[in-house]
């Protein structure tokens, strides 16, 4: 399980698009809504194959969330599609009252999450969405790491009853997970076994965590890499078991450290198994314009940052907690 190869880089949003198309063919109750971003969200195939089950809402995200809530009454499974910023921050109250507090089976599918939205800049990027969504009681939050996992997650959430936030991105990134694996909501995946340090990553940072682990091998440091695709509910046990062995952890995500996966993990570990932790995340700031790669470098969301944090946290192990 330790060697991963890139089958060919693809965008995670296309994984969503393919998953949705497959759902359109196999589940007559699946309906899709989009707020004028059908191409960006890769929803064209679903739309073309199921015009009666596709709702073009226009640039009106609040209305989209309300309509999605209503569509569940009578048994439909609505998938909404727009950018992560417009899927969460813009419509927080609609999601909160009409969807989550009302226990509606809506799947909020959000593309262009994080900083890798790129050139459009901070007004269209969002680095707070995981926090916003995970704070809602009863919300499930999923952030898959590559094309294959996003496709599997899209299909899996259709079979899960309850509101879900599915977060994915814009750029082409390595596609390395098994397209035939079983996607289990709420279950982390050990990608590499190790004994010196645990690296827990989500989304686009998972591939970078694997690369960091491979480089650390040269320095005789054994890194356990865990892919957490479901941020809520968090797979506490897989993390606790790992840090019992490694006694330190680095978390990596394309999100603000406030409200992110790292914060969830530190909160959980402080109650169960206090552990030295370092964060690879955005340090409480907005993004800006630039290419996705430039931005990931500038904001320290890369292999080098993970390696730095690994070294730092291993040193901290000497300090007794």
């Amino acid at each position, binding site marked *: 399980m330790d060697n991963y190869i890139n089958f060919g880089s693809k965008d995670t949003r296309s994984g969503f698009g393919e998953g949705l198309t497959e759902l359109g063919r196999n589940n007559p109750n699946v309906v899709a809504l989009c707020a004028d971003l059908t191409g960006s969200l890769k929803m064209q195939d679903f739309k073309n194959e199921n015009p009666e089950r596709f709702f073009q809402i226009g640039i*009106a995200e609040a209305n989209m969330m309300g*309509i999605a809530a209503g569509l569940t009454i009578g048994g439909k499974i*609505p998938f909404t599609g727009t950018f992560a910023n417009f899927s969460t921050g813009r419509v927080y109250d609609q999601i909160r009252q009409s969807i989550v*507090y009302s226990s509606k089976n809506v799947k909020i599918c959000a593309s262009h999450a994080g900083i890798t939205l790129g050139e459009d800049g901070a007004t269209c990027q969002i680095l707070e969405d995981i926090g916003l969504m995970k704070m809602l009681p009863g919300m499930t939050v999923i952030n898959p790491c590559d094309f294959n996992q996003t496709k599997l997650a899209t299909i899996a959430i259709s079979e899960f009853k309850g509101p879900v936030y599915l977060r994915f991105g814009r750029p082409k990134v390595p596609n390395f997970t098994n397209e035939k694996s079983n996607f289990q909501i709420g279950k982390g995946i050990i990608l590499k076994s190790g004994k010196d340090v645990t690296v827990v990553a989500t989304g686009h940072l998972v591939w970078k965590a694997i690369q960091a682990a491979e480089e650390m091998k040269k320095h005789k440091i054994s890194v356990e890499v865990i892919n957490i695709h479901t941020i809520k509910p968090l797979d506490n046990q897989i993390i606790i078991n790992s840090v019992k062995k490694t006694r330190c952890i680095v978390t990596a995500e394309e999100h603000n450290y406030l409200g992110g996966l790292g914060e969830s993990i530190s909160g959980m570990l402080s109650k169960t198994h206090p552990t030295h932790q370092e964060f690879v995340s955005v340090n409480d700031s907005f993004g800006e314009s630039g290419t996705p790669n430039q931005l990931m470098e500038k904001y320290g969301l890369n292999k080098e940052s993970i390696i730095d944090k690994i070294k730092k946290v291993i040193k901290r192990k000497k300090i007794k907690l």
Partner: protein
Amino acid sequence: MSDIKELENTVIQVRRDVLRMVHKVNSGHPGGSLGCTEFFVSLFYNVMETKLPFDMNGKNQDIFFLSNGHISPVFYSVLARKGFFPIKELETFRLINSRLQGHPTTHEGLPGVRVSSGSLGQGLSVSIGAALTKKLNKDSKTVYVLLGDGELQEGQNWEAIMFASAKKVDNIIATIDLNKKQIDGSTDDVLSLGDLNMKFKSFGWEVINLDKGNNISETISSLKEAKSKLGKGKPVFILMKTEMGNGVDFMMNTHEWHGIAPNDEQLKNALKQNPETLGDY
């Protein structure tokens, strides 16, 4: 079908329920509740087909959404008296551990409630979604929704109004409780709604003007007229003029009773004006 006299008796009993509910907990919204009592009784006792036990999916049933959730007292009273839940439960309104939350919610599993409301401006979108599902399911029943006039100041409504006509959602009847009052004063003073009739028509909706929304026969006849206009490519609005606090003289002609409860003496006076008909809870 119930005759008008019977419905009027029900209205009086519902008024009593509303007044007693808000008085007991010294909170809640009697003004709008009393203004819409005739509407709720007309809809639930005459116009709409309701089925028990309550089924969230409401397939092949008429369904109703309350967007202006603060008038929960009248909604709860009518649901209870129609048998959705025990009438006795009305005495738990706004109390801790109750299913009768201050604003309606599905969270506690109260039969008859299909979506939570309270934060204004969301009900029309939800009802459009439910209407679209009815179309997909080849379900010919109707979706009803009630909105306050003040909440038309929320922009989401106008997104929904634009959508429903553009996409020909012609199985929905949206009623506006046009009492022209909101918390801070008259809607004209706070933020004028302008000519709603003209606005709705220009947005592509059918509009029915119900000038006497506190008259049972006229309310029923407007709702029926609205129903006759469905299925023709346009959604339907009813502009229902009502009197906030209707049926209690000192609560009428003022916005003051939007969100405050009567004291003991005021309750006594109000109940005297509405003598018991079906029996108090």
